[in-house]
């Protein structure tokens, strides 16, 4: 079947006279970017919480930016991603003293997207592993407390809080995930399945989706060519770009060397009755001579020409 709800996660780098920059370089580049996504047929648009003010300044306000999205055929701004990748004195989910500050940030985010099409508030629930370790039941429980609280604030506003787990974050293994979900309220804290991140962490994203189907709120469809079997997740200060020997972890789906079985996942999604957004994410697609425009086009080609042929109810 043809899945109607494909959204694009707002990573993109484009050429400018000042070199490769984000499309928010200026409004002309942003418009070119939106037109390219529209051409490919995306109808949802996810972005980062910290990018909202930039769009507001380019378009006058966040709602004005959403209207621009709608002019380009999007239903609107469909998801907002928030993260504190690096633990600081102000934001560290495993430390209770920072919870009030984080909670206040999310109140502001909720206010910023009030009245928009946003369904999901996607969070990176922890900081870098090396800053949290040792990761214990206690750190996970404290983290769970925070997100229960944030989720309870967001739910009445029609926003799903959903957690996206990085391979280098402080909740990454099956056991850690299980403990976290055990201590969070299924109604308030969702699961967000990033196919590449889990694969790199050595966890099967398909199995995770089966297990947490009822609280799954969305996906990042992206691929990887490498499992972290050498403890790269502990690299300080950063595992995502600085891991020894792996300059690039993430690839668009449809590359022959990819490890994720997207057709199988698609079949599972169809069978499950999931009806949310499926999001395409191209994180750092420019590394090694790649480019975002091409990666996005070939990924959407893969959706239209491979995933759309997948049927549910297999075997």
């Amino acid at each position, binding site marked *: 079947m043809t899945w109607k709800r494909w959204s694009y996660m707002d990573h993109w780098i*484009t050429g400018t006279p000042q070199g490769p920059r984000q499309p928010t370089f200026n409004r002309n580049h942003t418009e070119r970017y939106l*037109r*390219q996504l529209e051409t490919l047929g995306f109808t949802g648009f996810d972005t980062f919480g910290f990018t909202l003010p930039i769009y507001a300044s380019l378009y006058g306000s966040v709602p004005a930016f959403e209207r621009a999205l709608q002019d380009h055929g999007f239903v609107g701004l469909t998801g907002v991603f928030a993260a504190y990748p690096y633990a600081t004195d102000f934001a560290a989910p495993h430390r209770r003293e920072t919870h009030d500050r984080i909670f206040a940030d999310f109140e502001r985010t909720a206010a910023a997207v009030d009245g928009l099409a946003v369904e999901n508030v996607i969070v990176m629930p922890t900081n870098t592993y090396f800053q949290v370790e040792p990761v214990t039941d206690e750190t996970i429980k404290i983290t769970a407390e925070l997100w229960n609280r944030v989720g309870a604030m967001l739910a009445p506003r029609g926003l799903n809080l959903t957690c996206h787990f990085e391979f280098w974050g402080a909740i990454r293994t099956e056991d850690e995930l299980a403990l976290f979900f055990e201590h969070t309220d299924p109604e308030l804290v969702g699961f967000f399945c990033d196919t590449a991140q889990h694969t790199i962490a050595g966890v099967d994203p398909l199995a995770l989706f089966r297990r947490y189907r009822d609280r799954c709120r969305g996906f990042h469809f992206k691929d990887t060519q490498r499992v972290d079997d050498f403890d790269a997740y502990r690299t300080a200060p950063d595992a995502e770009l600085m891991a020894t020997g792996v300059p690039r972890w993430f690839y668009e789906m449809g590359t022959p060397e990819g490890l994720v079985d997207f057709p199988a996942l698609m079949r599972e999604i169809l069978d499950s009755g999931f009806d949310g957004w499926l999001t395409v994410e191209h994180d750092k697609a420019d590394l090694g001579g790649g480019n975002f*425009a091409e990666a996005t*086009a070939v990924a959407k080609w893969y959706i239209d020409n491979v995933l759309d042929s997948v049927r549910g109810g297999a075997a």
Partner: protein
Amino acid sequence: MIRWSYAINQWKPSFDDFTRRRDHERALRVISISGFTGVELTTGTGRWEPLGNPDQLAANFGSAAGFADFVHDAALEAVSSWFFDPLLGFREDLSGPADPADPAAHDSVVSHATWFAEALAELGGEVLVVRPTASAWQRPELDDAVIDTIAACWNDVGRAIAPLGIRLALHFDFLSALRSHDGLERLLAATDPALVGFSVDTGEFAAAGLDPVAFIEAHPDRVAHVQLKNAAAVDDDDEYLRRNAEHHVKKGGGEKPVPRWFLELGVAAGIVDAEAVVRALVSHGYDGWVTVESDLSPHPPTSAMLNGWYLQHVLQPITAAS
């Protein structure tokens, strides 16, 4: 009915780019997902031109049919057309440049054109687009004898490829010798309408200071192919007459300078009214391929998508309404 294809030329900015299978696969997928159903190839020669001629297709894909499968696998319907410049010469058969203005070269032009047309027929194509003569700086004089010789060459080619189901389209560009001495109109008059069509390249017409819509209106029956691209400027200082204008003017920008002569459709800085072109085609019942180009783009995938946007939102509504 208009069918939309996309030219692959700009994906190969340098001789050592765009040689690997993966590059070709990705380019075809970008074209397909941007809303086009065909691809236009450009002739080339040598082992770094896998899509340059039938021998190279065979060397890389087994045969023309093998390449057709590759195109279909990318969800494209056909190779719409092939752009052929006889002045290129081919290493594959050690042929040198063949000049249509030289009667002795006619056999070579006809045989090469047939070589491409045969492959094109296998690839589901319809049009062989050709550069009819040299650049203006190479051929400043264009007397009637030269026009007649060029016309005879293309009449012969048209006759040779018609049985293959392939139409011939002479392509005018802004550096062409046909730009001076009223060459375009004279060649039009000297060629057989039953055998020789023309390709209206909107960007090239505009850069030459010509109105593509006026040409379509004046010669609707001769339009066998359209290349749709935008232009940024008009060469109103006759820089096309400059020695090696391909280099100094087209790529180098000339004296103005013009950083990039050709642009995506619909951009504010462009001077081509693509809507008017498509309306004119529709009004005359044009039935064939329109090839959109990323010519001179620094970033062909982006240009293809932006042109795809314009196709879907501006041009196809015009054709749908007709």
